[in-house]
C-alpha cells in the first residue's frame, strides 16, 4: 500500500488564529503552515496551548479570530464573492471529513467491539457497504497487530491496544490530515513502544499529513520533518528536529529541553 489516502495529502494553513478561554489567551495570532505530507511535531510545556492547536483544527473548539485552511479550503469560513463569511455547519462537516484525530485518552466507544469501532464511520459517514468496511477494518487491525482482538470490547483491551484500535479507527476514514494529541501520555511506559511503532509505520508508508503533540523527544527526532517549539500561545522556535533539539537558539527552548531531558 503506497497510497494510504486516495484523497491525497492536504496541507494546513493557520493565519493569525486567536483562541481564548475566558481571560486565558491560549493562541495569539498563531501562524502555522503545514505542507501536504509533512510531519510536524509540536513540543512545549503543558498548558502552553499546543493541544488547542489540534483541537481548533478538529473543530472541537471554535476559533475567536483568524482563518484555518485545510487542503486549500477554509474550515471556518465560506468565500462569498471576495468576502469571507462564517461557515455553515454543513460546510464545516465537509471540510472536516479530511481530518482525523487520535486522542490522549483513546475515546473508543465502550459499547462496541474493536472492529465495530473502526467500521462505524466508514459505514455511516462514507457510505461503504458493511462487507467492504469489515474487510478494510480487518486490514487495519492487522496493520496495528490486533487481528485476534477484533471482537473484544475496549474494556477487554490494554491501554496500548486501545490506542492502536483508536489509530486504526481514525485511519479508516482515510483522512488527508491526521492529528495525534499526546497519544502515548496516558499509557504505561512499557506500552508506549507498541503505539509509537504503529505511528512510525504510518509515517513511513503513507503520504498523510501528520501533526503530533508529544513529549517523546526521541520519537520526534526520528519521525518529524519539522519540530515546532510552542509556549504561551506562540511559536518560540521551529526547524529540523536535530537543529532544534541539539542546538536550540532560544533560551526558552533550552530551558524546556533541559527540563524534559532530551534522550
Amino acid at each position, binding site marked *: 500500500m503506497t497510497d494510504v489516502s486516495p484523497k491525497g495529502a492536504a496541507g494546513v494553513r493557520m493565519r493569525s488564529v486567536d483562541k481564548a478561554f475566558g481571560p486565558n489567551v491560549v493562541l495569539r495570532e498563531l501562524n502555522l503552515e503545514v505542507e501536504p505530507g509533512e510531519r510536524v511535531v509540536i513540543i512545549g510545556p503543558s498548558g502552553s496551548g499546543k493541544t488547542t492547536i489540534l483541537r481548533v483544527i*478538529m*473543530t*472541537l473548539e471554535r476559533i475567536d479570530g483568524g482563518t484555518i485552511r485545510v487542503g486549500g479550503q477554509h474550515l471556518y469560513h465560506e468565500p462569498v464573492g471576495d468576502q469571507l463569511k462564517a461557515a455553515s455547519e454543513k460546510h464545516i*462537516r465537509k471540510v*472536516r*471529513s479530511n*481530518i*482525523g*484525530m487520535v*486522542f490522549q*485518552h*483513546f*475515546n*473508543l*466507544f*465502550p*459499547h462496541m467491539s474493536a472492529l465495530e469501532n473502526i467500521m*462505524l*464511520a466508514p459505514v*455511516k*459517514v462514507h457510505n461503504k457497504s458493511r462487507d467492504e468496511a469489515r474487510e478494510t477494518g480487518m486490514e487495519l487491525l492487522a496493520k496495528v497487530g490486533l487481528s485476534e482482538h477484533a471482537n473484544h*470490547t475496549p*474494556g*477487554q483491551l490494554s491501554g496500548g491496544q486501545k490506542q492502536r484500535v483508536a489509530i486504526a*479507527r*481514525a485511519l479508516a*476514514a482515510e483522512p488527508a490530515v491526521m492529528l495525534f494529541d499526546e497519544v502515548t501520555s496516558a499509557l504505561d511506559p512499557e506500552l508506549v513502544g507498541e503505539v509509537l511503532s504503529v505511528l512510525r509505520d504510518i509515517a513511513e508508508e503513507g503520504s498523510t499529513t501528520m501533526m503530533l503533540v508529544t513529549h517523546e523527544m526521541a520519537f520526534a527526532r526520528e519521525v518529524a520533518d519539522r519540530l515546532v517549539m510552542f509556549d504561551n500561545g506562540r511559536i518560540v522556535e521551529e526547524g529540523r528536529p536535530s537543529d532544534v533539539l541539539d542546538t536550540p537558539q532560544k533560551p526558552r527552548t533550552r530551558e524546556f529541553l533541559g527540563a524534559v531531558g532530551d534522550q
Partner: protein
Amino acid sequence: MSEAVATSPTPSGPSTDQKLAYEPHRKWYRRPEILGPVAIVIAVYAVLLGVEVQPGRYRSAFTADGDLALDWDYFFHLIPQMLTGAYVLARATVLGFTGAIVLGLLMALGRRSQFKPLSWVSAFVIEFVRSTPLLVQLFFLQALFRTTDVVNLSGVQILVLGLALHYGTYTSEGYRAGINSVPDGQWEASTALNLDPITKWTRIIIPQAVPNVLPALGNNLIASFKDAPMGGPVLAVPCMLFFANTIRAEDFRSVEPMLLIGAGFLLISIPAAWGLRRLEERIEYER
C-alpha cells in the same frame, strides 16, 4: 483465581477478599432493599393468617353495619372484581409510561436544542408540570377534555394522558442526567469521526446513556403505577380504588377492599422492582 482454588482448604484472609472481589453483585436475597419489602409482605401475610386462625376473637357479632372486623369470605369474594380493576390500571400504566418514555425523550432533546425558543418552551413545560401535583393535573385535563363536546375522552384515556405528561417530565430529567453522564471524550470522538447527528445520538450517546437512565426509569415506572389509582376517584376509571369507594358506599366496608388493594400493589410492585434491577445488571457493561 486458580491459586485461590488451590489454597481453598486453608481459609485465610486474602482468599476471602478475593472471593468477594469476584462476586460484585450480592444475591438478591442478601440485598436489604429487596429483603426489606419481602419481609414486610411476609409479616403482613403472617398477621392476616393469625387473624384467620382466631376469627372469633376479632369478629363482632354484628355483620350488617358499622362492622370493622375482617371477614375473610368477603375478602376472597372481592378478588375477581379487584383483578379486573388491577388489569385496567396496569394497562393504563403501561400505556401512560410508554407515552412518558417517548415524551420524556422529546422534552429532554428539546431542552438541549440549540434553537433557543424550543429549549425555553421545553424547560418551562418540564418545570411547570413537575411543580404541580398529578391530582390537580388530572382534574385539569378532565375539565379540558371531558366537559366540551369538541374533544370527549374517556376516563382511562385522560389517565393515560396525565400519566404520560406527568411522568414524561420526570423521565426527561432522567434522560438529561443520563446524557450528561456520557463522557466528553465520546462527543469529541463523534466529532472527530465526522458522524452525523443522527448516528451520534442513536449509536453513541443514547446507548451509553441508557444504562445510566434505567434506574430512574424503573423508579418512575413503579411510581406511576402507584399513582395510577388516582384515576379511580377523580376520573371514575373502573380500577380498584373506584371499586373500593363503591363498596364503601354500598356495603359500608373499607378494610377488606383496602387490604386487598395494598396486598395487590405489593404483589405487583416488588417483582417489578426486582425484575428491573436484574435488567439493570444485565445491561451494564465494562467501561
